[in-house]
């Protein structure tokens, strides 16, 4: 019992002032706006906007793009909310409806493509580039998310938090890809997106597991 009293005295004795973190949703909004501005400027510099506006006339594509972007936005918002101790864990479910809509609209695109082009959509052609693009674009987005969460997160539930962050980052990268991927989605495309998202999520979760082991401090090995 005395040890706990000693601990309290010690913690109180070396207390330093801290600046309280800003609320999670405004921070998530700032991060998402930063990502959207980055993609919009890159699309403007590469003259990708006119083709995108033409493609948005197709309702299926508009729904797919909106669902992808919303999966990204809600995934990032959930990650910021779960990083704070007293927010509900159910925030982790927020991206799921948009993720389902994204898969459904992409799946419908695959079906429509199959009716037109037959089995040619099953081969992995330009889709290989999609994997590289999504992973490559996810790296700066994930690094930005890491920096945004690093100071403000409590990391009490790192796996749930980073899973949502991983889904969010991969979905934002997949949405950005649409600017430079002017094709109907095929089965191979969908597989490429899923594989890239899985790779990004696994990399982020593995990093979090190493950086934030969940073992309580006093049960860790004494020399560790």
């Amino acid at each position: 019992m005395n040890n706990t009293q000693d601990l309290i005295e010690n913690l109180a004795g070396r207390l330093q002032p801290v600046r309280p973190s800003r609320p999670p949703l405004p921070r998530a909004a700032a991060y998402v706006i930063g990502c959207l501005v980055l993609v919009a400027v890159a699309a403007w510099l590469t003259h990708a906007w006119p083709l995108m506006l033409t493609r948005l006339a197709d309702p299926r594509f508009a729904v797919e793009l909106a669902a992808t972007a919303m999966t990204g936005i809600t995934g990032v918002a959930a990650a910021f909310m779960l990083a704070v101790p007293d927010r509900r864990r159910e925030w982790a479910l927020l991206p799921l409806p948009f993720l389902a809509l994204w898969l459904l609209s992409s799946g419908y695109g695959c079906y429509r493509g199959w009716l037109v082009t037959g089995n040619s959509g099953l081969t992995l052609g330009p889709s290989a580039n999609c994997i590289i693009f999504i992973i490559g674009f996810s790296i700066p987005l994930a690094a930005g998310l890491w920096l945004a969460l690093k100071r403000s997160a409590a990391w009490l539930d790192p796996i749930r938090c980073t899973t949502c962050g991983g889904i969010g980052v991969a979905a934002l990268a997949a949405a950005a890809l649409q600017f430079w991927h002017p094709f109907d989605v095929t089965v191979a495309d969908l597989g490429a997106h899923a594989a890239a998202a899985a790779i990004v999520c696994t990399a982020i979760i593995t990093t979090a597991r190493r950086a934030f082991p969940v073992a309580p401090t006093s049960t860790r090995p004494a020399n560790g």
Partner: protein
Amino acid sequence: MNYAAPPLEVHDWDVLMARAQTGDRASYRELLNAVLPWLRNIASARLRARDDAEDAVQDILLTLHAIRHTYDPSRPFKPWLMAVAKRRIADRLRVKMRRTARETFLAPEHETFAGEETNLTEQESEAKRLRAAVTQLPEAQRKAVTMLKLEEKSLTETSALTGISVTALKVSTHRALNNLRKLLEKP
């Protein structure tokens, strides 16, 4: 009709935590002492062993200190602390379950000699020699080896309790183990 007043202590915790974020040490000490019985109740309800519960309370206090900047002063403090406590206790239970799953209890036939007295005497004499050797160590080394190796506290926790840096603790432990080896090798 009489309405019950809101519990004053909960309101006080909000104020004390907000003051602690500004560096007010007296308020922080008061807050930690005020939440201590509450944390002990929560921990002992979930962890049966008293030592485990007290270790969990210390974990929660250390976590509270480390992440105190994540508390939003415009929100109530108690749910924030409850979330930290629940998470830390759940982590401890998970680690304990993993350890228990890996451990095998020894039956009497696993002992070198079946008679309890024989083994106890041997263990006792070994323990006595070790305790005697530890008392011969310089104070810093004795403190480090006792807390880290005999009481199995973590480096972070020991550093927090003693005010000695983690690096200095590692050096002291290393030297203490070398000295103990030499002392115990003597006939």
